[in-house]
């Protein structure tokens, strides 16, 4: 359920930005690509992380999944909650229409990743195997930044 919520939350945000942009510039910015860019590092690394936590530290898979689900749900709620704010920002800012909505889309990534990292960071602090978790979070942050920068650069260059 939580992965679906994450896709829905980020998708709603991407749709809001895209619909506003389409209204102004008749230009579609690939909302699906944005969802993939945000969630890809997470979905690709979670299985390996879970296996390592279970094998090396002996954590309960169900508890780990529950923790991740809660963090994902919070992140999805956060990015969806900021969608109306960004809609308001977009429709009231007289930005020239050909400009790629760099700040709005970057803000969406921040609104998703900050709660996710905060929730996961808080829940693993003080527990056994936190070094592994922190290393995973750091690598997640790096790969996510890389994926998002790549996607934004494509948007700036007009290749979406």
């Amino acid at each position: 359920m939580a992965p679906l919520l994450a896709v829905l939350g980020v998708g709603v945000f991407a749709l809001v930005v895209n619909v506003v942009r389409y209204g102004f510039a008749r230009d579609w910015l690939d909302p699906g690509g944005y969802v993939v860019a945000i969630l890809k590092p997470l979905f690709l690394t979670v299985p390996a992380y879970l296996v390592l936590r279970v094998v090396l530290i002996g954590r309960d898979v169900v508890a780990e999944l529950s923790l991740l689900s809660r963090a994902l749900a919070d992140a999805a709620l956060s990015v969806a909650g900021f969608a109306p704010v960004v809609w308001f920002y977009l429709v009231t800012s007289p930005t020239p229409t050909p400009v790629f909505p760099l700040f709005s889309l970057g803000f969406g990534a921040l609104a998703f990743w900050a709660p996710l990292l905060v929730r996961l960071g808080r829940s693993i602090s003080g527990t056994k195997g936190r070094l592994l978790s922190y290393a995973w979070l750091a690598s997640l942050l790096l790969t996510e930044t890389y994926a998002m920068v790549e996607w934004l650069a494509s948007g700036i260059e007009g290749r979406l």
Partner: protein
Amino acid sequence: MKAVIARLVELLRPSGAVPSSAFRTSMSGGRPPSRDADTRVDADAGLHADAGVDRDVGIVPENDSIRTLTTDLLLALSGLAFFGVWITSDVSVAWRLWIALKIAGVFLATFVLSLAPIYALKRLFDVEARFGDLVSVIAAHFALVGVFASVAVGPFLLLRRGHADADGALAIAFLAASVLGSIVVRARAPRRWFTWRLTAVAVVLTVALLGQSAWALRPYMNPTHPTLFQARLEWFTGSNRRTAEDVILRLAGRGGARPERIQGSEAVDLPAPSASSVCNGQPEVLEQAQSVGLGG
């Protein structure tokens, strides 16, 4: 009217009000409130008795947040509208009322838009308070802003110079002081809803939304004489935005020539924007947009 006055007194003296019995129980780890606390409640209830506040609880009960929300929003909007009526240099009644509506609208839009992010923050940081109570607290802040703004009309009329730019800056300064005053006064309240970090996040969020709402509704002193918010247009169309885009391209290893698409109206794959389409018909912004190179 009596309820509004009672609420006003309560808002202005948050440190005098005490938590309701339910809150005191939760703060004391489930233990019943001490006799000292009860004595304090009675003393404070005595202070508020003339204002019509319930003597048994001292302040409006927790489950009455809907009623206080209505009163607070009423106080906020009427106070801000009153401020708006007096800050314009135009003598026409219609223009004064329009500015009053705009000022009230700025704060109402901020209030409405801040609710979803605040709910996300509440969930993320496991705040145990009910969301309705949090909404009520936010409305209480806005009510105080309205009260402070309405009493700032007098000093504003004394200090105004009759010059649109200076008076615009003065009006914004008074509103900023009202917002700051509301935060300071509410910080004295006995009830702590958020930790200081979460409070800082919520304040930054709300102030950012307030700035955006102010930019959106543009409650200028004079329709043909824009004031402070105008600088933002230049920020987004000027060199700062291009620097940000260049940084992204360089980080992605694509530091080559910039595409035509992002260089304003010379876009090759998109129709050039009309200034009126991006300015929502605002004449002052239209003028600025034309000055930075957008088509008319």
